[in-house]
Each structure stands twice: as C-alpha cells, then as structure tokens.
C-alpha cells in the first residue's frame, strides 16, 4: 500500500488548523459587519427576541450555519479517517466510495415512488449502507484490494449520478426538493440541524475514543490482530458502519458535501499526524476548519456568485487529490500487460465472433425504421420510412460514430498502458476535453458544435499527457492513474454544476450537449463524426504492429526496434482526436471506451487489429441502441443517449467485474 513518506517529524496539524480557523473567524466578522448588525452578540440576541429582522438573520441564520459547518466538517473528517483506517487506503472517503451518490439516488427514488415517506432519513441511510455493502462485496473476490474498492466505488458513484440525472429529466416536478437538498447549501433558518449535528459529533467522538486502540490495530496485519484476540473482519465492518452512519447524518442535514473529509484526513497525514488517535483528531479538526473557511468565503461571495458550499468543496479537494498523487512516489513495477488484459480471453475463446456485427446491423435497421407515436411502437416502411429518414439518420450516425470512436480510443489506451482498466472515461480524458470547453465557450461565443468537437480534441490530448505523467510518477501502478482520472471527472462535474447555477445560456447549451443529447445533431456534425471514424480506422493497419508490442513495456519495445516516442505520440493523437470528437456527442461519462474493448476480447478476437475493429463494432452497437432507447422510452420526451449509455455501460462494467 502506498503511504505518504514524510521527512518532517513534527506534527504541524494543530498549527494549520489554528490558522484556518483564524481565517474563518476573520471572514465571519467581515460578513457580520458588512451585513450591518455588528458584533455585539448579547444585543443581537435581545434584538432578535424583539423581532428585529437583521438580528434574527444572524441569531437564527448565520450563527447556526457556523456551528453546522464546524460540526458537519468534523463528522466528515472523522468518517473519512475511519474509512481510511478501515480500508487501509488514503483515498477512501464517503465520496470516493460512492456513498454520497447513493444517498442522492436513494432520496430521488424516495421522492418519486414513496412520496408519503416523512423525512429523508431512511432513504439516505439505506442508500449509504447499500453502496458500502455493494462496494465491499464487489471487491471480495480480489482480496479486498484497497484500490480496487475505491475504483469500484467511484464507478458506482458515476453510474448512480447518471441514473439520478435520468430520473431528474423524467420526473423533474417530483424532484424539485432533491435539487435544493443535493446542492449542499449550508443556509440555516433555525437551530435544529446544528443541534442534531453537534450531538452526532459528540456521540461519534465518544465511540472513536472508546474504540481507538482496537481501531489503531487495523493498521497492523491480520495475523498480528488475531494474536490480540479480535476478529479483524468484525472490527473493520464496525469501523466502516460507524463512518457510513456519520456520513448519513451529515448528508441528511446538509446534502452532498464531497471530498471535505478526504481533504481533512489527507492533510492531517501530510502534516505529520502519525498515530491513529492523532489522525482521527486532527483529521476531524482540519476538515471542520476547511469547511468553515470555505463556507464563510462562499457567504462573502454570495451576493455576486450564489454557489452552494457543497459544490465548491469538491473544487478545492479534487486538485488537492491530484497534487497528492503527483507528489507521492510509490515503488511499483509496471504490470505485464499480457497477463492483465488477456486473462479473460483464455477462458472464452470460442465466442461467436459475428454476433456483434449482426447486432450492429440490427440496431441500424431498428434505429432507422422503428419509432414511437402517440399510439405506440411503429414500424416505418415504404414511403414513411424515407419520409422519416431525415430525422433519424443524423442522430443515429452521430451516436454510432461516437461509440465507435470511444471504443477505438479505449482499445488504444489499453494497449498503450498495458492496463486493462484504461479508457478515455476512467482516465478522465473525456472530462478533460469537456473542461476545456467552459472557458472557451465564454471567450469565443460563436462556436458551433463542429468547431467545438475539434477543440475538444485539444482538451483530450492535454489530459492524456497529464495522465501519462501521473502514470510515470507512480511507477505505472495502474489504479493510481485511475484515481487521478476520476478526480478530473469529479472536478469537471462540479465545475459544470457551478456553471449550471450561473445560468449563462451558452454554457447551459454546452451542458445539454454534454449530457449526450443527440437532439440537435445536424447532418454536418454526423458526417464529420462518421468521417473521423473512417479516418482513424484507416490508420489501423499502420499501428497494428505497435499495438501488439507496446503492452510488453518499454524495454521489450526497444529491443524489438520499435520507435517508442513516435509510436506513443501517434497513438496519443489518435486517442485525443477520437475522444474529443465523441465527447461532445455522448458526454464525458459513457463507459463505452472501457467496456467495448473488453467485450471485444470476450467475443474471441485475438489479434490487435481484429480486436480493435470488433471493439469499434461493439461500441457503435451500444451507443446506437442507447440512442434508440432514449427516443422510445419516455416518448414524447427524449432521454439523452449519453445518459442511457452510461447506465448500460455501468451495468456491463459490473457484470465484467463479477466475472473476473
């Protein structure tokens, strides 16, 4: 396990927490003075009881909000420290384990299908618990490998977020409350939440104090623990349940506040907290002070930029995560690609190789011929078929091309890195491509979709470079690169949600594209995407030999006379071009680039070029069917193909993990 190496011996956690809280208090005073009522608290309380509105806003709004920020931050920091200790993984926290996304999904389900339920406690708790159980279960087959737990958790989180977005699109009216709750706004108008959180923090602190010695043993190996007479499994489960319960309480009260716990725990460790007791205490204190400072800053900015606090914390913590990953060197050896990526194929060689192509042809026919009217499902034939063709072919071609391109990019990346989990989505390449669009669309207002597609390629290229750097820094430990990619994805997600609250129409249009809506695809966009797919496919014969050699690693490549630098660059450009083009059509989180190459191997393809082409066929078939389903399922509403394909892709991912 990779731990952070420290040269310092002194514990600076206390000092940093002191500085952060001081800064927060200064901001708090500025906020109070700027809003008028001043700092004379006894007088404020007196005026509040005399129905003075300004005083009431402070005594029942600003003050409980301060307490809520501190208590919620403390609980999240403690929860993250417990998860970190329980899983022995510095990256475990409620957000990375998919627990927060599950809480949000649970609330959405409750609001739609159980409207009579009073309060959101049960949906939040059930969502959090189910997510934890699912993530732990998914990793049982792989000796609870800590990083695979986090990767599964983040994939689960992305999938549940896509599912919640789908629910939001189809049940917008019922989910109005979810929109307000999920944004993690700390605004208060009474002391209820503050009291609940303070009591919860006190109870949690007590529990951890009592259990601190056995919990500290979780850091030892299991045989050592058995020697002390405790079942490590029971203790680990207890620790994780406690952490999940704390997360659920906070989430119920203030909504989704991501990454604050992770940041607090990571800072405590970086600043020199060594023992478990120190880490728990300072993790909680630092997370509390981080949330406090952030929230006060948000309040100061709120007249100009009304952003909920929960959205901003992710903006702070995701870069922190990336910096941590870049700073932390680990000793790791490059995994041997063949072993990693080919272990499935040996078992299922005799799969029907023509099945994917048949599926693709079928979905093209269905996509062009079958629609839905007010009366029901309807086959178009003859004149009606040609009549409806102009409405159907551009979006179908765009969806097919996007799927094919992502599958192409995913196959290349898996070959290039020798990592079976590499894909444009999981390495954050699609998100990086989308991220570059935000400033660009503001600076160059007249961009149409076609030029946006090209610029997206540049963003994709930069992200691939970043992820290769990460990969080199971490000694090619594949899953650390994945965490980096997921951090970029989370960062982009919160940037987009902030952008959505700003409501600039140009950016809202971008978000529409990024949810993978093919509604406004024009024939020119479709032809461009299709053209690029044909172009990159023409390059396959040129790179086929490289593809079989690259997974063997650098020394082997050199020994076989491969021009390593040039081969890498050409492949990177191909990956960037196809990813950029596809992202703007189906959105950043589609899983096609991950799934299609695996399914291609499952179908029995062995040579690199064959595998690549088969993956393209499978990717196209998947997005093609998602586009058609999106057109049919919620008629006359249309579900964005990108969201449908995310759910399809995540289900395929889960099946894939279960098979391994």
């Amino acid at each position, binding site marked *: 396990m990779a731990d952070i190496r420290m040269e310092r011996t002194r514990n600076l956690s206390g000092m940093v927490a002191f500085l952060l809280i001081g800064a927060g208090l200064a901001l708090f005073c500025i906020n109070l003075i700027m809003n008028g009522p001043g700092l004379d608290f006894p007088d404020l309380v007196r005026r509040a009881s005399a129905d003075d509105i300004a005083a009431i*806003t402070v005594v*029942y709004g600003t003050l409980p909000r301060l307490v809520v920020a501190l208590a919620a931050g403390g609980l999240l920091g403690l929860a993250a420290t417990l998860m970190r200790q329980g899983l022995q993984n510095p990256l475990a926290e409620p957000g990375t384990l998919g627990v927060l996304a599950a809480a949000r999904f649970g609330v959405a389900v409750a609001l739609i299908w159980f409207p009579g339920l009073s309060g959101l406690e049960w949906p939040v708790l059930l969502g959090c618990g189910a997510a934890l159980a699912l993530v732990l279960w998914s990793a049982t087959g792989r000796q609870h490998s800590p990083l695979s737990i986090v990767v599964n958790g983040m994939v689960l989180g992305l999938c549940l977020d896509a599912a919640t977005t789908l629910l939001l699109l189809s049940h917008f009216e019922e989910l109005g409350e979810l929109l307000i709750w999920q944004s993690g706004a700390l605004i208060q108008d009474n002391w209820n939440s503050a009291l609940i959180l303070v009591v919860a923090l006190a109870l949690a602190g007590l529990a951890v104090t009592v259990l601190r010695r056995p919990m500290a043993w979780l850091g030892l190996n299991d045989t050592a623990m058995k020697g002390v007479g405790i079942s490590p499994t029971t203790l680990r489960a207890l620790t994780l349940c406690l952490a999940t319960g704390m997360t659920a309480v906070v989430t119920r009260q203030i909504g989704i506040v991501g990454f604050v716990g992770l940041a607090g725990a990571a800072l405590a460790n970086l600043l020199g907290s060594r023992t478990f007791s120190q880490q728990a205490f300072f993790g909680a204190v630092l997370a509390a002070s981080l949330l406090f400072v952030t929230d006060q800053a948000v309040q100061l900015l709120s007249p100009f930029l009304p952003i909920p606090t929960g959205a901003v914390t992710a903006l702070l913590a995701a870069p922190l995560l990336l910096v941590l990953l870049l700073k932390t060197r680990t000793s790791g050896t490059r995994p041997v690609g063949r072993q990693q990526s080919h272990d499935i194929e040996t078992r299922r060689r005799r799969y029907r190789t023509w099945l994917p192509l048949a599926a693709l042809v079928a979905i093209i026919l269905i996509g062009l011929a079958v*629609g839905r*009217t007010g009366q029901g499902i309807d086959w178009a034939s003859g004149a009606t078929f040609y009549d409806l063709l102009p*409405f159907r072919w551009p979006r179908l071609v765009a969806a097919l091309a996007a799927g094919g391109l992502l599958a192409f990019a995913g196959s290349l990346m898996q070959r290039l890195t020798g990592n079976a989990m590499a894909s444009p989505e999981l390495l954050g390449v699609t998100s990086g491509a989308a991220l570059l669009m935000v400033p660009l669309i503001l600076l160059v207002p007249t961009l149409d979709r076609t030029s946006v597609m090209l610029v997206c390629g540049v963003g994709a290229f930069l992200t691939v470079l970043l992820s290769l750097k990460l990969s080199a820094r971490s000694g090619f430990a594949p899953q650390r690169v994945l965490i980096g990619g997921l951090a970029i994805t989370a960062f982009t997600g919160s940037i987009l949600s902030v952008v959505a609250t700003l409501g600039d129409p140009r950016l809202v249009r971008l978000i529409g594209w990024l949810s993978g809506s093919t509604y*406004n695809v024009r024939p020119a966009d479709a032809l461009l995407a299709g053209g690029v797919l044909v172009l990159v496919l023409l390059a396959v014969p040129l790179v086929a030999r490289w593809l079989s050699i690259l997974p063997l690693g650098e020394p082997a490549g050199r020994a076989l006379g491969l021009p390593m630098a040039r081969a890498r660059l050409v492949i990177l450009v191909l990956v960037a071009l196809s990813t950029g083009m596809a992202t703007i059509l189906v959105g950043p989180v589609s899983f096609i680039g991950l799934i299609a190459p695996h399914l291609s191997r499952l179908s029995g393809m062995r040579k690199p070029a064959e595998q690549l082409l088969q993956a393209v066929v499978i990717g196209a078939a998947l997005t093609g069917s998602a586009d058609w389903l999106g057109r049919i399922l919620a*008629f*006359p*509403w*249309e579900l964005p193909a990108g969201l449908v394909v995310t759910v399809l892709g995540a289900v395929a991912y889960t099946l894939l993990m279960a098979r391994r």
Partner: protein
Amino acid sequence: MRLALAAAAIPSATLAEGKPMSGLVSLEMAITEMLLTLGVTPLATTNIPLYRRLVTYPEMPASVADLGPFGEPNPEYLHRLAPARILAADWQAPGLGRLAAIAPILALPLYPGKTPALEHQEAVLRQIGDLCLRRDRAEEVIASTQATLERARARLSGINRPVYLCRFNRDGRNLAVFGGNGMLGDVLRRLEIANAYRGRVNALSGGTNIPLASLADAPEAVIVHFDRGAETEAALQRLDQSRLWHALPAVAAGRIARIPVIYPTGGPLSASRLADALAASLPEIAHG
C-alpha cells in the same frame, strides 16, 4: 372555482366568424393560452402537464397532442401530425431551425420590452387573431379583460398597502417575486396597487429570486403568494419552522393571501384571472 368560471366565461361568444384556421401547433404556453382563449384548438403543443399546472385556464382539450419539452419538441411526432404552421416564442425559435422543414415557423415576440406588458400581450393576441381569422373574438376578449380590470380596480380602490406578489420556493428560504414591467407587475399598476418589490426583474418572466429576509423591506406590505400545490405545502411547512418568517410584520399580522397560480408571462385571460383573484382576496386582509 368561482373565479375560474368567471374567467372561462369570457371567450364563449357566438360563432360569427368562419371556420378558424386548423392545423396550428403552438410550442409555448402563453401562445397556447391565447389560441385556446380565441376558441382555436391547436393540433399539438409542448409539455401539456406543465400547462395544466401553471396556466390551467382555458382548459386544455384532450385532443391536443403533447410534443414533449419546450427546448426539444419531438420532431418525428410533429412531422407525422403534418401541421400547417408552427407558432413559437421568439426566444425559442433560434434552437428550432430544423423544424422549419416540417412547416413554416412563426416566431411571435413575447418579450414586452418597454411597452407595458398587458398592452404588448393584447397586440400579440390580435396578431394571433388575424392569423386564425378570429380578430373579432380577440377584440371581445380584450374588451372584457379591460372591463374585468376596471371592476377589480373599483373594488380595491380603498387599499393603500403595497403588495408583494410572490411564489415560495420549496426550501422555505428563497422566493420568486414579480413586478417591474412583467405581466403580473403591469396588472398591479392597472389596479392602482403599489408593488412592494421595486428591484430589478427578469425581462421575460417579470420575476426574480430574493431571500426571505427581503420581505421585511416594506413592513406595511401584504404578501400575496401563488399556490403551486405540493410545492407550496412543502414551503409553508418549512416556513413555519423559521424564526425569520414569524418575525415578518405581514406574517405576524396575518396579512397574507394564497391565490391560484397565474402564469407570469400569460396573456389577457391570465391578467383577468389575477385581477379577479386579487379583488376576491385583498379586501379581507389589507385594510387597517
């Protein structure tokens, strides 16, 4: 219910004109409202559930097909219905260029700009009346709207308190308030009632979002809020737990009225429904 009947009675004039133009599709709720006010049933429109919730009257006939969302009306379905003409709001039109291949799109100017909103909506109603050969009916509706406004003005003439016209958000912390040159603000002006909210509003809806504490800016005001069913129930439940809410002078003195929802960018019929609702509810709470 009494209000609803009074309002729905306005357009039931005799059929003196010829057959109205058929095969019209409306992509926006105010346009749909005006078509139905003129007795013209569109072939299809967008987001019918939302129309039923926010505009309500005239009632949407069951025969009208639903094309889905405002921003992405289902093109295939529209094509199959083979409309003669598509009516859209000017702000919608740029995103819908592709639909022009199905039928000619008429973009109606729904931004009032500097013209008083009601006057502007009356002009749009006349334009639609001309288009469907229902100009006479349009003039009748406009005349009866003005009569309704005049009746309401007379009934409310003794009231000196300003009025907040608002809708509470579910969270019980923010609210949408209406005024400026929006349709709702313009009706208040016609009724010679002072709007308690004097800030800037969004040009299209004539509303904006403000925090709850802003309702204390005019302590003598009356609060009139729109009833959006479950959403309003949830809001009132949360407001009841808020210390700030109970400290608002209007709340403490019970100067608060809940009236049926009125579409803030609606046409003349929405304007008369607001005038009727205010005339029915304000006199009880606004004196003294």
